[in-house]
């Protein structure tokens, strides 16, 4: 089974160190490839350039998108490219900021059982947490773009082509128009494609967006989630943001040590941790208090003029 499985990530040159750490966490017998968006100085034979893939639309995508959108949009192109390689039956994608802690067998087993495997970004209702509230997930996506596994089949290629076509020109971050890079499109997967699995294991794809429902403890030399499930993989993407709120979320969930040891590993490859796109950060505007106050004041003036009470009442 191992020989038939290929694992890949997609990143920009700046984020190459993350991909190197991810590689260190994977079982050595599995093939690992790095999809690269942009030029990187490396002799690593596992690096595959996005612009060299055999798809006509790639140059126009380079013109169209900024780096976070392009990296996101490249995923299904790499996935079908790798899935078409000789002897490959299963392809698994991880975000470069992921680290695999647990037993890989469970992941392999799921990827051989279903055509498409996704993970939900969270699994339980919660109302409101420091990360955000429930409605924030509605227009950003129910299923996480940091992980997917696909099995070679006609159905899977239909899915990948469908995703590619949409990400060619609709991979912007534009929540008001139903777009959040590659992620929001995944809402359609269980509806439009057969034989897909939304796997709700709380040890999979742990990240800032679900830390409010997961407590991590180190027990018998292993990380365990909510005292029951072994930690299988953790995506540090949004955890890398500096700031007291994020620090508190990590500390409260017991993941502080996990994060600091991850950062230690990164230091082997880079002196400075490069900034990572954080959805949460981009939604919580980084306005200063003064700017915010000024905006609120201007809005109040506009509203006062709009609704100054000279009116008559009408029934529709």
């Amino acid at each position, binding site marked *: 089974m191992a020989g038939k499985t290929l694992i890949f990530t997609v990143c920009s040159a700046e984020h190459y160190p993350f991909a190197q750490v991810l590689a260190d966490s994977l079982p050595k017998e599995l093939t690992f490839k790095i999809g690269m968006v942009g030029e990187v100085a490396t002799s690593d034979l596992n690096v595959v350039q996005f612009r060299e893939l055999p798809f006509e639309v790639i140059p126009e995508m380079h013109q169209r998108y900024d780096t976070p959108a392009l990296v996101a949009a490249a995923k299904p192109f790499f996935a079908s490219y790798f899935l078409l390689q000789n002897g490959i039956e299963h392809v698994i994608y991880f975000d470069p900021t992921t680290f695999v802690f647990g037993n890989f067998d469970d992941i392999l087993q799921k990827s051989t059982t279903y055509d498409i495997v996704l993970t*939900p970004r*969270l*699994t*339980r*209702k919660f*109302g409101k947490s420091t990360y955000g509230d*429930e*409605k*924030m*997930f*509605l*227009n*950003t996506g*129910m299923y996480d773009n940091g992980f997917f596994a696909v099995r070679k089949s006609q159905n899977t290629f239909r899915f990948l082509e*469908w995703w590619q076509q*949409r990400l060619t020109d*609709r991979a912007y971050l534009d*929540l*008001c*128009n*139903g*777009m959040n890079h590659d992620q*929001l*499109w995944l*809402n*359609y997967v*269980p*509806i*439009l494609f057969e034989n897909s699995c*939304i796997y*709700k294991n709380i040890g999979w794809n742990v990240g800032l967006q679900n830390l409010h429902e997961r407590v991590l403890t180190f027990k018998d030399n292993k990380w365990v989630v909510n005292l029951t499930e072994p930690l299988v993989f953790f995506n540090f993407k949004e955890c890398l943001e500096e700031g007291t709120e994020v620090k508190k979320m990590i500390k409260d969930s017991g993941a502080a040590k996990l994060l600091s040891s991850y950062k230690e590993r990164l230091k082997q490859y880079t002196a400075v941790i490069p900034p990572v796109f954080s959805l949460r950060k981009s939604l919580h505007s980084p306005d200063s208090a003064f*700017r915010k106050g*000024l*905006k609120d004041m*201007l*809005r109040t*003036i*506009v509203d006062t*003029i*709009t*609704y*100054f*009470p*000279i*009116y*008559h*009442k*009408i*029934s*529709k």
Partner: protein
Amino acid sequence: MTLAFTLCSINYLAQARTLGDSLKRTNPHIRFVIGLVDRLDTANVPVDKLPEFELLELHRIGIDGLDEMCEHYNITELNTAVKPYFFKYFFGKVPQVKNVIYFDPDIIVYQPLAELEALLEKNDFVLTPHLATPIEDQLTPNELHHLNTGVYNLGFIALHKSPEALDFVKWWEEKLFDECKIDLCNGLFVDQHWVNFAPVFWNNVHVEKHPGWNAAYWNLHERTFTEEEKGHFVNGQPVVFFHYSGYDPAKPSVISKYQNRFTFEQRPDLNPLFDYYRDELLRNHNAYYRQFPCYYIKSEPLYKYQRIRALLKKPFEKWLARL
């Protein structure tokens, strides 16, 4: 026992009656209730214009904070926000109820719902998606629209009385008390978008993709209709229920005011279904009911001196845009 209900104000009673008539014909064993988001006592509807179906007025189901809800919702928002409250009422107050089905008033049920009732034996939720196959064009509505407003259509939802379903109803009530708004940039689209969470937070959710279920303007691209001796068919299967969303019998040439993909000229296969619906609505006094304003909706103020207001606002809006 299976109970089906719809929700509307008096202005939509022709639709609700048409739905009720269709259920009575096809599923006489199902108890049908019209949840009325309105008050009969103030509207003075004459007795001969009252539907023969059970009417349950909103103020009788005991919602805490109903006044507050009416205060901040318009007629569409209020009609959708009270949906879980009615579910809770039926599950809690109607003895022997096992399944509760919600249908939008602008639906006609054409077939027995035996398959749905069988599904509810094994599942706690039954939902229908807007689409079962991709849409390749970018006319309205396309795949992006449903990403903003919800992938399941909430003109239909069926629940089996179970701890999972009751837990969902309670959560949905809390959400819709003050967040049943249309605010796409913040992820809100009335009651519908919230239901994207159903298969994530709960289990035993069945998503039915049969082309005859909840066929409507948003999935015409994948469904072709025929009229045969035995009734209406779609892609060779019986039409179980059709959802005439956005159709107005006063504008019979428009399939739906919310879509621009098809006309009746391009889709003559739709004529029998819509001709029948128009006749049914006219027979059920559509024009008469349409004139009633909803009791719960306060008259809206019309602000005078719009031009002067716009002029005064201009510099502040410019400043805001630059920030």
